[in-house]
């Protein structure tokens, strides 16, 4: 099977980025290209998912070199689904950027880099080669690093330094792990590695290598105690950038963890308990962190950590149901976190602050908008049947099946903290009377924007809210996929077959 179509989501983004670079001097053209490009990318990803669902796992051997000799790209349901979600988030952020990103940034390559970031994410989801995964990670790091820093003042730069240092440390650890894998097996193809690593007699070394992967990807997924870069940086860049970060960056780490710890390494008891403990502490850390924040973007940042704990718990429990839960949660979280950072951006556009203490009065002034923003907020909480609920349900199912009451307790704690925090935020930002804040000169307020820009911002939020609702109410659809994905992760023979033909 050699289906070149599966790299199209990646290549197409590169193509769009190149075209954008060529239109360097025309801001409006760039915006147009970006939105149209993102739309087409969404279509492509949708077609890919449909194809994978209908015809099974697709693979492409780049350059026609049969695996494991070339670089293999593999689209199973997991990858295709994540690529689709990336495209959805990408489209939303692109549209949101049209409304919210300053022209000065557009002049300095905002859009090309945004598309290259999305390309990197899609590439990471699709690749079947461990070193190629490293390369995709690097493109993600550099593009996010650039997006985070450019045009930045103090806070942004400080955040970026922390962000990039820890992520580069993660890369080095990852690279070290790849070196060891190569030393042990002589292979880089993940499917091939799956077979080769099973034959390594020195299991101790395999376990040590697994630790390196755990930490490397753990840093990227912002797991306790490796998460520090996230709260230090996510609240600093323009909201459109926070949105794509919040939605996708950590998720790629989670994806990598799930993939590597099912395909290449199967966690032994020690590792599984380490993962489970980390998951619980991650929930706790994210939850309590969010609890004491006042800046809404910081609240969301910590909640990302908290919810990464949920996904990690799925891996720690390591059963089909639990992993399906983690995957469902992943799907939900990508959409909702992207949306929430856009929501925070919109709030800022109205009031000129992210501080909950100062904000207020939305519910009275903007009832429809409040309703719109309530969708991602309460989806995040997981008020059933909104999207956040289903993954959690599956996780608890998985934990019950293994009688892991402690994990349940932490999931309950994490969920409760999320509920409390969001409800409190609702009370503070929407219910509380908003004293009219003094208008700051350096902020362009929502009312001052052109109608097209306003519509762009609101429609992107509406778009993702609709998707969230669809995930919640149409849970069956995602659930089938999540279970299918989890089954395929637990038994990767189909994946290996699709790549190596054995």
């Amino acid at each position, binding site marked *: 099977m050699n289906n070149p179509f599966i790299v199209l989501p990646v290549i197409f983004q*590169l193509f769009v980025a190149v075209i954008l670079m060529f239109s360097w001097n025309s801001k409006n053209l760039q915006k147009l290209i970006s939105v149209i490009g993102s739309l087409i990318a969404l279509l492509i990803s949708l077609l890919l998912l449909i194809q994978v669902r209908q015809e099974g796992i697709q693979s492409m051997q*780049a*350059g026609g*070199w049969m695996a*494991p*000799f070339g*670089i293999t790209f593999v689209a199973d349901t997991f990858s295709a689904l994540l690529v689709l979600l990336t495209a959805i988030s990408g489209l939303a952020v692109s549209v949101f950027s049209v409304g919210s*990103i300053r022209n*000065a*940034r557009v002049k*300095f390559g905002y859009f090309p*880099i945004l598309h*290259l970031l999305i390309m*990197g994410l899609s590439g990471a989801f699709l690749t079947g080669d461990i070193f*190629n995964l490293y*390369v995709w990670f690097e*493109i993600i790091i*550099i593009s996010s690093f*650039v997006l985070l820093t450019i045009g930045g003042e103090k806070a942004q730069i400080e955040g970026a330094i922390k962000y990039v*240092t*820890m992520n580069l440390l993660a890369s080095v*650890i990852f690279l*070290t792990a790849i070196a*060891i894998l190569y030393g042990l097996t*002589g*292979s880089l193809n993940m499917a091939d590695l799956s077979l080769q690593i099973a034959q390594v*007699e*020195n*299991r*101790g070394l395999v*376990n040590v290598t697994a630790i390196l992967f755990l*930490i490397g990807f753990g840093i990227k997924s912002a797991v306790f*105690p*490796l998460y520090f870069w996230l709260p*230090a940086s996510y609240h600093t860049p323009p*909201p459109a950038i926070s949105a794509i970060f919040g939605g996708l960056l950590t998720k790629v780490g989670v994806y990598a963890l799930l993939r590597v710890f099912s395909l290449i390494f199967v966690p032994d008891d020690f590792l599984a308990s*380490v993962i489970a403990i980390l998951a619980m502490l991650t929930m706790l*850390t994210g939850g*309590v962190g969010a*609890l*004491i924040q006042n800046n809404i973007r910081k609240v969301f940042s910590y909640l990302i950590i908290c919810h990464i704990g949920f996904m990690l718990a799925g891996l720690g429990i390591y059963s089909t149901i639990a992993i399906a839960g983690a995957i469902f949660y992943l799907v939900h979280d990508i959409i909702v976190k992207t949306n929430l950072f856009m929501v925070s951006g919109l709030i800022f556009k109205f009031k000129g602050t992210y501080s909950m203490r100062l904000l207020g009065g939305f*519910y009275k002034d903007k*009832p429809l908008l409040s309703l719109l923003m309530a969708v991602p907020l309460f989806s995040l909480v997981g*008020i*059933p049947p909104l999207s956040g609920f289903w993954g959690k*349900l*599956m996780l*608890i*199912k998985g934990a019950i099946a293994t009688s892991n009451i402690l994990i349940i307790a932490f999931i*309950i704690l994490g969920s*409760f903290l999320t*509920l409390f925090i969001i*409800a*409190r935020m609702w*009370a503070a930002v929407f219910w*509380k*009377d908003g004293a009219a804040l003094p208008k700051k000169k350096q902020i362009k307020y929502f009312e001052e924007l052109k109608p097209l820009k306003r519509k762009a911002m609101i429609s992107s939020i509406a778009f993702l809210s609709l998707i969230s609702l669809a995930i919640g109410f149409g*849970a*069956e659809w995602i*659930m089938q996929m999540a279970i299918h994905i989890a089954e395929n992760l637990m038994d990767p023979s189909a994946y290996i077959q699709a790549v190596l033909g054995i």
Partner: protein
Amino acid sequence: MLIAVISGFVFALLVPWIMAQSKSKTTIWTALLPLAIFTFFLLHLPEIQNDGSVKVSYSWVPSIGINLDFYLDGLSMLFVLLISGIGSLVFVYTSTYLKGHPFLDRFYAYLSMFMASMLGLVLSDNIYTLFIFWELTSISSFFLIGFNNDNQASRRSALTALSVTGIGGLFLLAAMVGLGHTAQVNQISEMSSLSEIIQADNLYGWIIVFLFLAAFTKSAQFPFHFWLPGAMKAPTPVSTYLHSATMVKAGIYLLARFSPVLGGHEWWNGTLITVGAITMVYAAIHALFRLDLKGILAYSTISALGILVFLIGLGTSAAFLAAAVFILVHALYKATLFLVTGIIDHETGTRDISQLGGLNKVMLPVGVAALLAAISNAGIPPSFGFVGKDLIYDATLGMGDLAWILTTLAVITNIALLFAGFLAGIKPFFGKLPERFAKLHLPGPAMYIPPLILGVLCMFFGLLPFLLESSLIQPVVSSFTETLPDIHLKLWHGFNLILLLSAVTIGAGTALYFIIKPSEKLLAMVSRFERISPESIAMLASGGFTRFSSGWTKFFQNGYLRYYLITILSFLSLLLAYRLFTGVTLYLDTSSMTAVTFYEVVVLVIMAVAILFTVFSKSRLVAVASMGVVGYSFCLIFLFYSAPDLAMTQFSIDTLTVILFVLVLYNLPKYLKLSETRDRIRDGLLSLFFGALISLLTIEVMNESVDKETSQYYAENAYVLGKGKNVVNVILVDFRGFDTMVEITVLAIAAIGVFGLLKLHLRSTEKE
């Protein structure tokens, strides 16, 4: 049935729109929906008699067995009728109570949503949909309690209510999942036959713990009761609907519903009796000292809920019967009292019981309703309350050894409750009318007719209890228990112990009413104990948790990058070391290694010294230069070991890096503030430990030599298939060309980044 449930949600969405469209200010028409639902279910009443039930199922998320299974039996029928019946009255009442309120549309939306959720909850046969509707009741009540959202107290109590019920909801989820796991089915109606299997499962204990937490929080059982008095900040229709008649009874419903599945076990019954008893007594006594009408009602409601839990805990069919009747009794009189309180509040502007009196003179119909309710509450014949109280005593007396203790507790509770009922239903209307209230008028009929209807019903069912006997109560009880008791509801049982107890209750309660005069002083006296009340403890705990959160967060996220790195690296080192020293046999195989040569050693020595020099040099530029030396030594190493391409690239890149550094560094000040020696030693040890681990690991991996199939393939095919003789280059542009493609993209991004970083200067600090 689905339509009945869904319609509420749809209605919630439509209400604001319809109201925006219609010009008329009356909103009484909204009551048509609950009324229609009430009628719909009333028509189903015959179907559930004689053990009958109605079952419908709609597929939703079949892959995990979550479907919209609905099940209508006696128990659900009782609740459904309460929900839609009282709902209708509340809708009507609201149309006047909140007339002209700017957000009335939203209020109706939440109210319908809440009603629909309640309906869904009591009709669900699927454990998961049960949970879903349960959560929806919490969330819609959050919006209802916080409806007056510019009031800080109102926001706070909404938050408290949501927190308590929300965490309960999560426990319910855990309970349901556990139940589904042990029973292997998701339909409650199919679980009662699996009761033994479930109770034998290891998870049984956890399941009931979770379930209790859910039920006790929702139904305001001690020690989770404190959210309920706070929730009285909500507009009165909300208090009436949620906090007396319906939502708080969801916990009772839950316990009742699962009694046949989980009940009968000593853990189950023991806990329920204990918690129920504590709650009913504790709350009843608390009700004695309140001044706020709503506060009195809130505590008496908690007490009533305690009675219900207590009864379910008793687990006998007599107790179930008592519970079934008491649910109805309580709903009727308590809703009446709440609605009345709302009218008083609405008209007089106060709910302070010490300031109220003689209102009969200005609003007689309201007073009548209140009186009827108070009588029923007191259990004075011929009210329906009398029937209920009789059944309670009947149930407690049937408990064998414990009968006396339990009965005493019930009597004490009932005395206090009677007092509270009088306080709320009689005190405001009799006695002297304060002058400032002299000019008050009867509110609109939409407000006083609903309580009147309910008040009358309190009497009506008392006089004609048999109307309910087989139509409703018997089906209810039959859904609790297989062994159907012979049920005869009647007012008069003849002279017996129960009658005596009733008389004692009424007498003592009435006496109390005349002795205790609620006052600030009394309230203050009681308040002294609040420091040890569950609420204070919860607040203390939550304060503690916040402090813990703050400490935990600031400890880890302290702002110093190097501590972050230290944490990460220590964690990594520990895990690595553990796995390396426990799982790997360390040895060194030198057989396949290459010989040591002088010139290589020289290069390595230079490299090592240059590394150290880089680390310890006091000037940036010198560090950069010696980093250059490191790079150039690398270049030689690559050369010695047959990697000319690498050597070239390393060399060019190192030179460029040095140039970049040099271009950047010229305007930086000198290194300042060297860290303390202690820090440096700590960092040095950590670094060396980590470095040593990596070295060890490398040696061990080197021992495991493998044939590299991929390399062999490249060696054979680079020229034949790839048409190139420099195999490394063929790999880069062909075999692994994709890496290179990404690699140059990385470079391009870096360049754009550098360009923007130095050239983009945002005007002022304009923010996005």
